[in-house]
């Protein structure tokens, strides 16, 4: 609205500066958005992730019953201390589509000798067992969290969600969402090496 107040000549420079303002703001905003998108790729920017209060702490106390159909041992927090190597704790459910997406990565980790412990979240025993029969079983231990209590104590945002615990059982990393091949190669494998 400078055109009402500006006198021609003297204030032309100011007018020019003013007209550059929208461009400047747009460029700054664009740079910010670009940084966010980059951060989404590398994991440094995550709009969904509320940083886990558990990072740097041992797992909360819990004891879950086994999934009888799978024949796997049950899972409790005592299984997560004094370990020979870092372990993953993966919250999943048979009704969760992204869990199917991440399953091949868990299978790969399991084949590579990484201990993956599963927590079956709010699921029917039959469905969960059928899922493992159909897609393969990557888990060494598997606890059933049908009421979802343990997930609340862990602060799980939604399934799938994965935690990395170091050899002392301290939670070092949390990934809400599926472990995609990119996450596996760029985040998880370096972390596994670092804490080995």
């Amino acid at each position: 609205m400078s055109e009402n107040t500006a006198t021609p000549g003297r204030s032309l420079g100011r007018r020019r500066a003013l007209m550059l303002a929208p461009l400047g703001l747009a460029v700054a905003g664009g740079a910010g958005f670009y940084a966010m998108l980059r951060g989404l790729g590398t994991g440094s920017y995550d709009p969904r992730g509320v940083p886990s209060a558990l990072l740097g702490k041992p797992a909360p106390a819990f004891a879950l019953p086994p999934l009888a159909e799978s024949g796997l041992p049950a899972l409790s927090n005592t299984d997560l201390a004094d370990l020979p190597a870092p372990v993953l704790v993966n919250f999943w459910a048979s009704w969760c589509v992204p869990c199917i997406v991440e399953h091949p990565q868990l299978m790969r980790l399991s084949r590579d000798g990484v201990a993956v412990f599963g927590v079956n979240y709010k699921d029917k025993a039959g469905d969960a067992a059928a899922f493992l029969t159909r897609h393969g079983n990557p888990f060494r231990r598997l606890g059933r969290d049908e009421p979802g209590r343990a997930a609340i104590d862990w602060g799980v945002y939604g399934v799938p969600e994965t935690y990395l615990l170091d050899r002392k059982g301290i939670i070092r990393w949390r990934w809400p969402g599926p472990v995609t091949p990119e996450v596996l190669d760029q985040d998880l494998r370096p972390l596994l090496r670092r804490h080995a």
Partner: protein
Amino acid sequence: MMAELGHFALALAMALALALSVLPLWGAARGDGRLMAAAPPLALGLLVSTAAAFGALLYVFAVNDTSVAGVVQNSHSAKPMLYKLAGAWGNHEGSMVLWVLILALCSGAVAGFGRGLPTALKARVLAVLGLVASGFLAFILATSNPFNRVWPPAPDGNGLNPVLQDPGLAFHPPLLYLGYVGFAVTFAFAVAALLEGRVDAAWGRWVRPWALAAWSFLTLGIALGSWWAYYELGWGGYWFWDPVENASLLPWLAGTALLHSAIVVEKREALKIWTVLLALLAFAMSLLGTFLVRSGVLNSVHAFANDPERGVFILCLLGLYIGGAFALFAWRAPAMAPTGVFAPLSREGGLVLNNLLLCSMAAVVLTGTLWPMFADLLFQQKISVGPPFFNTAMLPLSVPLVMAMAAGPMLPWKRAQLWPVLQRLWWAAVLAALGFALCLAFNGVRVGPALGFTAAIWLIAGAAADIIDRIALFRRPSAALARARGLPRAAWGAAIAHAGLGVSILGMAGMGLATDKLVALPPGGSTTLAGYEWRLDGVADVIGPNWTARHATVTVLRDGAVVTVMHPERRFFPLARQTTTEAAIHTTMASDLYLVLGEEEGGRAVLRIHHNPLAPWIWLGAAIMALGGGISLSDRRIRVAAPGRKRAATARVPA
């Protein structure tokens, strides 16, 4: 086969859009009439090929072709036909095709109806629209092809998100896109004006109907979305200041400002640079919304499944269109001659105030929406900006806006006096004050709703006063009817739209007095809320086409007489493994009785009961606002082709 045809049609559309964005622009720069004349046929070709692509998409969804990835992810054979078709645009890929189709429709309308447009301006406008279309077609073809095949074909689809299986939501995106994309046309006019270095009254006259149409559709689209959130999400609210809701409100605020400042350009040839900037901003806000919703930088319940790669592509498009337009603006706008002098107190002054307030509101919403993201990025701080911030920041801006809204249309152009206007509005002020007092008397000291009622009465009475004054109802009653008929429809439209906002505010004020209650009732048990007795008669199982449900029967009584029987449901969609609540709503004009069925435990059913006074008026008001826009659009001055341009050599900028 159909999918390949659709894919081919998209590629053809891309080629035509590229030609449309280059040839006419080149022709306009060189003064080559034949190249400029290529624009309308190219725009029509773009329309035909995009429509063919969209038709193919509808077809593959209608026949549930499970070899197409989009169908597998979003559809299912057991779905009603309406939602099969709505599924075509209920996902990221399909909605982008719809977006481009509407853009092509707008281009076609400019090409077909813009006969009075000067050839060069028309060529440039169509070229800019072609440029926008080609960018988004490239985006679809490169990252979001809706016709991707899967092999082997899936046995059946996964089903549309059940929350989205709703008639309100089926039409929410098309209306919203009509709004967003309508602002692409005003954007194209603004860019063309910057290229020509000229803005005049005729330009304002061409821009205003487009702004008006886009604004009306956007109003309807936002209202439909808010209505859907109200009855489908079952939270009992109508607006949550969710980032995605804000993303649709931003272009609405900028568009409302544009609509009003374009009047000043048309009538007085003032505020030209500002209007051009608003036209750029309105579309920038539309694109920003697209980016926020689809790129994944935002944390919202509404956001599409997203991936950063698409985000980078959209950001590049944004950089090209918005960055390019703002750069052009910075280069060309300073040379545009300021014209049209007016006193601060005048119709123009009122519209400037309107613009300042609306833009401040847009700035507040933009800041509140983006700040959490930038705080996360810059300071690694997780903060959330919610309703308390927005309500606190918007209130001081809304109060003067509403106060000025009733008086503004009565101010004469150039120079005005406040006293005569106040004389015509005194009874509206008295009514409003009476409303304030009555609300306080009946509902106790609750300033928010009381202010709302005051504002609503002031706006509705103010609009009535404006019309009464224009037709001289009391001064010369005998001629009033004839004058009412002779009154320009634009004046009727403005008054109706202003009154419509008053009606919406009335509903919001009523919602401020809403009461609710959470109870667990055994069958036969009852509770009371808002003077009604609510009795749970029973809960039963029912089976729908692709869901099963728990279906409650609740009888609502007042003074022992049955008012209504309500049936809230909790539906379970086995395919999506998702539960939705179907709120039961009994609407009277005075209030909504709103009932949600919760979990059942130990023979008791949890019921959430809301009594929402005046709730339907919120959306009724929005519909009235859009109606006002439509009436204004049908004004004779807009329908009849705008008069040819004066050859004003002095206004030209040396290129």
